[in-house]
């Protein structure tokens, strides 16, 4: 459906050329939800804009539904208005001089000749899809943030585009609305069966909505996999750090214990066991990654089934559904996230248990 091959785009800055997108490639099957996830400046928005045709890449090839829309070799560049791609912008880009109806009708009126009645019908359908049918006469400036967001979505899908591009569409909404819109966006995408490329720096959004996530950094794709795999088995420290606030403990990969994938990592505070040795070499430097929710806290070492560590509670943040602890173990500070029913005071001694099957080992030289 969407095919991106060897895409390359650089920008001239005061300090010379900066590679915004550095020879990346990926494929998005029809009807799936694909996310580009990464910190700001990683090239995810530039990639999206290249697909849209708003930026012109220097090298590479982009194919949408079998049609080459850009190819540096064949010197093809189809301008954005001929690509039939819907796009929702970060600022929503609602035209303030038109009302709700006219905003959605614009893509229809601009393109091929469509009967007035058909325009109205399609607009109403699109507005109904995002639950805005009541507001169609409203001036577009009179909408709340969430309504503008829905309007932008309706406008992007009204032409039944081949592809839907979403550029950080939720970043301007407050937390509660964001959760709501996330579900809404996914619902609309699924209803229409639209192939979607989604750009975000928020791992929750990417993980919860996508079929496939591509984590980007400095213009390159670091890992491209389904959300669960990315979350549980990040391929390098960058992904591990970016995806979830994992505890990363430096150590040396000691010999595996023979049994399947089980291995031991020697750290400055003692050894740790992990069920997923992955690609590390014995004797090599690694990071032992354990998520805060995969650390268990006990007041008594005998409660722990596995050999664990002990440490001191430094700081507690009560966050409602769970409690966030910062615990010092030797020279390390680890984060643990536990249910509020388990309670420790600052300064108290605690024992830590690691769920070895949920930990991973990340080789450092893979960076």
């Amino acid at each position, binding site marked *: 459906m969407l095919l991106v091959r060897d895409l390359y785009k650089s920008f001239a800055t005061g300090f010379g050329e900066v590679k915004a997108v550095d020879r990346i490639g990926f494929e998005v099957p029809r009807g799936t939800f694909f996310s580009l996830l990464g910190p700001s400046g990683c090239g995810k928005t530039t990639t999206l804009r290249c697909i849209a*045709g708003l930026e012109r890449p220097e090298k590479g090839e982009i194919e949408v539904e079998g049609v080459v829309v850009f190819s540096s070799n064949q010197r093809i560049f189809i301008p954005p208005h*001929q690509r039939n791609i819907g796009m929702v912008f970060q600022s929503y*880009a609602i035209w303030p001089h038109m009302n709700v109806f006219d905003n959605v009708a*614009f893509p229809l009126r601009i*393109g091929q000749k469509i009967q007035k009645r058909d325009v109205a019908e399609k607009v109403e359908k699109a507005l109904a899809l995002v639950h805005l049918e009541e507001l169609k006469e409203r001036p577009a400036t009179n909408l709340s943030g969430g309504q503008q967001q829905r309007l932008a979505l309706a406008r992007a899908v009204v032409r039944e585009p081949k592809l839907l591009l979403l550029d950080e569409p939720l970043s301007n909404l407050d937390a509660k609305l964001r959760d709501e819109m996330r579900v809404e966006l996914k619902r609309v995408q699924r209803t229409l069966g639209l192939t979607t490329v989604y750009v975000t720096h928020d791992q929750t959004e990417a993980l919860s909505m996508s079929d496939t996530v591509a984590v980007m950094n400095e213009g390159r794709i670091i890992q491209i996999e389904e959300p669960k795999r990315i979350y549980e088995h990040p391929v390098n420290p960058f992904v591990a750090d970016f995806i979830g606030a994992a505890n990363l403990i430096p150590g040396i990969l000691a010999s595996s214990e023979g049994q399947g994938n089980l291995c031991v990592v020697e750290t400055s505070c003692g050894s740790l066991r992990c069920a997923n040795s992955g690609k590390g070499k014995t004797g090599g430097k690694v990071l032992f990654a354990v998520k805060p929710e995969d650390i268990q806290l006990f007041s008594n070492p005998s409660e722990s089934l596995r050999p664990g560590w002990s440490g001191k509670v430094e700081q507690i943040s009560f966050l409602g559904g769970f409690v966030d602890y910062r615990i010092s173990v030797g020279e390390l500070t680890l984060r643990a996230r536990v249910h509020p029913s388990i309670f420790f005071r600052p300064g108290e001694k605690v024992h830590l248990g690691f769920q070895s099957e949920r930990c991973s080992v990340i080789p450092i030289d893979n960076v």
Partner: protein
Amino acid sequence: MRVDFQRFLFVAVLAILGYLVIPPLFFTIQSSFYVAKGFEPPSLSLKNYKDLLSTPGTGSLLLNSLWFAVGSSVVALVIGTLLAWIVERTNTPFKNLAYLSAFTSFAIPGIIKVIGWILLLGPENGLINVWLRDLLGLQKSLFNIFTMTGMIFVEGVLWTPVVFLFMAAPFRSMDPSLEESAYMSGAGIAKSFYHITLKLGLPSVLSVLLLTFVRAVEAFEIPALVGIPGGIMVLTTEIYLKLKTGLLPQYGPASAYGVVLIFFVSIGLYLYSNATRQAQKFYTITGKGFRPRLIDVGKWRYFTVALIFVLPILLVLPILVLLWSSVLPYYVKPSREALSAITLANYFSAFQSTNVVGALKNSLFISLVSATATMLLTSITAWLIIRTNIRGKWILDHLASFTLSFPSVVLGVALLLTYLKLPVPIYGTIWILVVAYITRYIPYGIRYCSPGLLQINKELEESAQMSGAPWGVVFRKIVIPLMMPSLFAGWIYVFLLSVRELTVALMLYSPGSQVISVIIFEMWDFGKTGELAAFSVSICLILVTLAVIFHRLSRRYGLQI
């Protein structure tokens, strides 16, 4: 294809701007190096510049220009800044009156105000002089406008409203928390004012000073109407006389003076743009809608209110004296007997003259066309500069601001030379004025379009592209409608400037292509004071209406000079 269309547009705009800007400069410089000898073809020589250096008058011309410019800009700066501070930072009432008079005063052609002041301060019959003589029982008049002091006073008064409008903005937008944090750091009101307010405001003051200075160097109305009769010549009037008196127009020497003037003005503008950049750096506008803390002036408010009334008084006095002269068959000072002689005869005779009606039509047509063309051209230029990354777009930027350094007298000479030499048959028609005004007002148009365009989120255009709209449709349906308020404000501004423009018109008009300001100038020359007054009062009425609209818009979009 989008990119190719942009390139096409770029080349087209580049060609238009280049055509408007480069030939006038080229022919002025060229002509300054040629000397005409009788009927022989002109020859290349440095004679014009040598003459310029060796003529004893040149030194005094330069000194006069300098003194006139320094004097009037200081007068305008002191009064204007004080008023701006009073209006924006104190709790003095009648603030809107100050704004309204400033905008109205801007709309009234300079020549009308100058003539009003001459009628007020003339050494023999000036109304103020006559009254003061009667009141104090003096033999001699107190004031004589036909002196350097008189010139400086009137020019200063003319620029005061502009300085006021310019200085009001930084005073208004200065974040009060900057001063307040100085108080909290232990500085008193005086120390905070000196270390914070004054130092933050200094770049603005400096840039406005430079601007009024530059504009006074190239001023023409007052040097022509007040300076020439008083025997005080400056560079601009010298250029004018070199062309308009004598057997043959002396293009060579006039061009040489013109080049000198461009040089001085360019230096001034260069310093100005540096100073403004400094001022911008200190600009403390935040998006928050704060109101600056107002200083309670207490008993001083009687004094500050009186000062606020300076603006409307300076505006109304010259108009009132014109109104008085317009309703009398011949000029006498106001008295009870004179009241009985009141008549509208001047109004009838003024508007019966075909010249006058023709000039009104011409002015209207030229201003409409110039304003529309300027805004159209500059909106596309601004779009290319801001929105595209075409290599070489900086050339557009430079071309578009270049004519700022062309004093209007010099632009007049330059276009005269250009269309005498280029095979474009617009010399002697009103189209040469249209071309002249567009050339002259491109920088102003740009300054309205650029901020207007910068306010529009780029994604509004991109989402239209993604909706399937080609560039032309995006520009027509999205960019233009969203820029409309600033386009309209700019349009009115250019329109008003075109109506008031005297200097360029005076250099380029020919019988049949006179405009309002030229007609007034001619009437003054012929001593038809009554008809002149009637005509001027009518013009004022029309323009003031426009100014009120402009005022409404400009409070939102800011004055740009």
